[in-house]
């Protein structure tokens, strides 16, 4: 996993740290103008890297080559002005909601609506046909039938025109395999591995959607960071839609109450699952179409919530470290802990995705380090308690899944804490933190895939 290619996707570029930082700074600087789209910055970057390679081949040092190459591209202000002349429409991106005069934009919207309706219908078909399959199978299949619509939205007709082509097979495979792994095994009555599959499968499917989103460039750290960013924004939009949906459902119940409970129940059975599935697609469309709206929210949201989570985590870590965890440690509590840890990880990732690579350490970094260290302590406590239970009561599917997840998180948090501390004292560059997290993402996905694939047969589908 340590081997990664550069954002430009080229073989010749190496991880020459210093130069990479300067290229990243330059990218951020050029990309700041609304007239210069991310695709344009990519194009300029590939030019810059070609120039750098030539200059270095001619015997210039990295420093000299960078200065000459940037100078040859032209002053950033003049460059943005030139882009603005050709792409004046982009300057309005942040002022008006609908992309102006965009036939392409309207086509995307139509696609998004069709796909959202498709997802909504798919979920209903699953609900109507799935009655005989049992609750867990239906829950496991729900992402399998809805997320393909999301993958179709983010993977096709991409702005940069790069087609996925045969790589659609890579996107599709997890869905087919997922459906088979949920439906086919001879699940035991009340099987806990079945529940684990339903819980872990969405992570694998999400990775497939991310793969489609970045056009298959999953090896590139910047592409993986794009997936993180898109996921964070998707969560924000989904939460907003869910809030509105909740109000809608509440109003519907009030309005229909006189007609009797049966009517209300039927309406809700159609409204709620379909709305939830359709919103998956609509939120993704919003991420793409209204990018600049939420773009500015990531720093604000993380600035508000990271300190709050830091407080909660520190308090619970202190309490549990003093009182011990073993006494009232049960499955629900474990689930709560793991959720909390995942949220912290998500916050850290989301914060990193919004940060510029050349920033200096500040108060937010201290808060983030506190949150990570508290999460680390909690995770270690959970692991100790889990190991204790395994020692007393033996291995069960749930304990293996929990042990694995907490182990994977422990490694992630340990390195993240070490890097964050190093960054605070000025020994580690900011981009190392982001790079660690993006290179660790496949490990999380691999663990989820392992639980889905290996755990059920090992435990005899119990």
């Amino acid at each position: 996993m340590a081997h990664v290619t550069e954002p430009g996707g080229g073989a010749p570029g190496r991880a020459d740290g210093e130069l990479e930082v300067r290229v990243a700074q330059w990218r951020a600087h050029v990309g700041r103008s609304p007239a210069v789209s991310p695709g344009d910055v990519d194009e300029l970057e590939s030019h810059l890297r070609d120039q750098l390679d030539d200059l270095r081949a001619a015997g210039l040092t990295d420093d000299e080559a960078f200065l000459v190459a940037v100078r040859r591209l032209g002053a950033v202000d003049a460059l943005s002005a030139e882009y603005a002349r050709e792409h004046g429409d982009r300057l309005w991106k942040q002022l008006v909601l609908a992309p102006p005069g965009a036939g392409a934009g309207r086509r995307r919207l139509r696609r998004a609506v069709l796909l959202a309706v498709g997802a909504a219908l798919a979920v209903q078909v699953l609900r109507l046909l799935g009655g005989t399959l049992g609750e867990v199978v239906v829950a496991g299949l729900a992402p399998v039938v809805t997320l393909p619509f999301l993958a179709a939205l983010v993977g096709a007709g991409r702005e940069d025109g790069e087609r996925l082509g045969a790589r659609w097979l890579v996107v599709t495979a997890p869905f087919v395999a997922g459906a088979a792994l949920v439906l086919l095994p001879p699940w035991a009555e009340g099987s806990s591995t079945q529940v684990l599959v339903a819980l872990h499968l969405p992570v694998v499917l999400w990775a497939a959607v991310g793969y489609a989103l970045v056009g298959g460039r999953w090896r590139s750290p910047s592409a993986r960071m794009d997936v993180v960013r898109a996921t964070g924004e998707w969560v924000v939009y989904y939460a907003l839609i869910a809030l509105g949906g909740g109000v809608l459902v509440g109003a519907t119940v009030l309005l229909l109450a006189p007609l009797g409970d049966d009517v209300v129940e039927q309406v809700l059975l159609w409204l709620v699952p379909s709305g939830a599935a359709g919103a998956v697609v609509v939120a993704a469309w919003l991420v793409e179409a209204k990018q600049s709206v939420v773009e500015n929210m990531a720093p604000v949201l993380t600035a508000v919530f990271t300190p709050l989570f830091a407080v909660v985590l520190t308090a619970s870590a202190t309490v549990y470290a003093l009182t011990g965890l073993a006494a009232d440690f049960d499955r629900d509590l474990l689930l709560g802990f793991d959720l909390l840890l995942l949220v912290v990880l998500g916050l850290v990732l989301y914060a990193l995705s919004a940060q510029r690579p050349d920033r200096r350490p500040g108060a937010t970094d201290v808060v983030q380090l506190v949150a990570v260290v508290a999460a680390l302590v909690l995770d270690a406590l959970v692991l100790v308690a889990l190991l204790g239970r395994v020692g007393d009561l033996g291995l069960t599917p749930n304990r293996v899944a929990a042990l694995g997840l907490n182990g994977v998180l422990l490694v992630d948090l340990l390195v993240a804490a070490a890097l964050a501390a190093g960054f605070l004292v000025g020994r580690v560059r900011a981009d190392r933190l982001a790079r660690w997290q993006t290179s660790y993402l496949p490990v999380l996905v691999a663990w989820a895939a392992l639980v889905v694939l290996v755990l059920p047969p090992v435990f005899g589908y119990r």
Partner: protein
Amino acid sequence: MRIDKDLVAASASPLVLGLLAEGETYGYALLQRVREVSRGELEWADGMLYPLLHRLERQGWVVAEWRTPPGERRRKYYAITDGGRAALVEQRRQWGAVVRALEGAWPAAASPAAGGPALGTA
């Protein structure tokens, strides 16, 4: 010799179209060719090429596509369209008329060695 900024700007799009007519290529390689054919006398800030290419694309004279050839970095390739070829023919005609007019107006004896003839072929 430094060529006047307005002349550089005016010649940029026929020059780029002419070079793209040789075959599809990407920005960096295109600029190398510009240096070659102008013997280094046409100096652009490299970055300015891209808004120009985007304009040609909007006019339907070139088409662009991101591609990653095996073993190379990901680049945006530009190719000339039929419309672009037609535009190139028209621009050549206009430039030819300008060059002929200038040659008619300037006595041959006063003409400097370089510069003039190169325009006729651009």
